[in-house]
């Protein structure tokens, strides 16, 4: 018997809200959104954790410019605090080495992080989800019982065909959906609204494609001042449906 699943709830017990950032396919901005959302909430004075669970392409550490740190051991491992965020990622343990993991390995590695990380008391844990609705995503959905899902898409038909499957799956599993964000918007188009009209899901708004964003990657202070941060404040954090007042 694997003892780790039993301890996950206990590890997350001090966390008020778990926001899992997901979406149909890769490259739609899950990692950027998770990282900037975490930074923004931290700046607002909330206690925030960020957990990168994309084991095949961990990116949040690159976005936050984290390098050369290693978590402390203390009755488990304590996520290092970087830029005001408690941050946990497999990157501490793999460095830059490629780690070709099978499904079973990914499940195991994610579960290990969940079983040994001591988050303490947090207002928010933001989770950078593994892409899609494969095994990794299904495991996380199962373990993070209290997670609320923030769904990203782009305005592309290619992204929409997959994001619809994610929404359908989350609804089937009766998971709470914070809403859908259209990221990297480049032009006016009703495609996202039209394609998602059949699903009863809040459309929170759009984040424009930001030509200057790339230069801010690796620079947390600049990211916290970016258009993306401003838009996330506007369309997610200040949206009454996000129910921030509860926190």
């Amino acid at each position, binding site marked *: 018997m694997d003892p780790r699943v039993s301890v996950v709830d206990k590890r997350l017990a001090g966390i008020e809200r778990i926001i899992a950032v997901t979406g149909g396919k890769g490259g739609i901005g899950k990692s950027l959104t998770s990282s900037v959302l975490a930074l923004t909430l931290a700046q607002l004075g909330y206690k925030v954790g960020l957990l990168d669970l994309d084991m095949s392409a961990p990116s949040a550490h690159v976005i936050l410019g984290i390098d050369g740190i290693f978590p402390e051991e203390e009755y488990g491992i304590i996520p290092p605090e970087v830029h005001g965020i408690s941050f946990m990622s497999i990157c501490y343990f793999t460095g830059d080495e490629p780690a070709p993991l099978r499904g079973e390995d990914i499940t*195991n590695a994610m579960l290990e992080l969940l079983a040994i990380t*001591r988050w303490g008391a947090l207002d928010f844990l933001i989770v950078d989800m593994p892409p899609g609705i494969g095994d990794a995503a299904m495991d996380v959905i199962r373990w993070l019982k209290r997670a609320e899902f923030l769904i990203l898409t782009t305005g592309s038909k290619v992204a929409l065909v997959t994001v619809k499957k994610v929404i359908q799956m989350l609804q089937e599993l009766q998971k709470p959906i914070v809403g859908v964000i259209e990221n990297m918007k480049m032009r006016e188009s009703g495609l996202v609204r039209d394609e998602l009209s059949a699903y009863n899901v809040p459309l929170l708004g759009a984040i424009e494609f930001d030509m200057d964003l790339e230069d801010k990657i690796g620079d947390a202070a600049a990211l916290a001042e970016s258009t993306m941060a401003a838009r996330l404040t506007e369309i997610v954090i200040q949206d009454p449906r996000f129910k921030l007042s509860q926190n």
Partner: protein
Amino acid sequence: MHEWALAEAVIEAAVEDARKEGMTRIREITVRIGELQQIELDPFTFALDEIIKLHGELLQHAQVKLEDEPAIFKCRVCSTEWHYQKASLNEAEGEAIHFAPEVAHAYMRCPRCKSPDFEVLQGRGVTIQRITGLK
């Protein structure tokens, strides 16, 4: 000492299982310690004892028995099997694997064909082998 966290997981899981089985007293928990994770036994057994003390009657007389499980790897490309000793990891690598055994795939290769695509047949980490007690 992240061994404490793993010990907590063992006790949580044992309690959960004992409740499900309708036990009133746990007598013995047999835990397998996979070689790959290089658990430090002293802090681990210390943690188990301390955590057991924090629990009530269910665990009052519980004994924990530890069994070693050697790590064996098998290449998915050429089917070669090898043992942990052959892995020749440096200290930082061993330390990383201690926290997340899967990162072995970043640091180990099949000794025959050099593939990183191998299976951990046994000896990955901490598992519960058996729980006995009174109903």
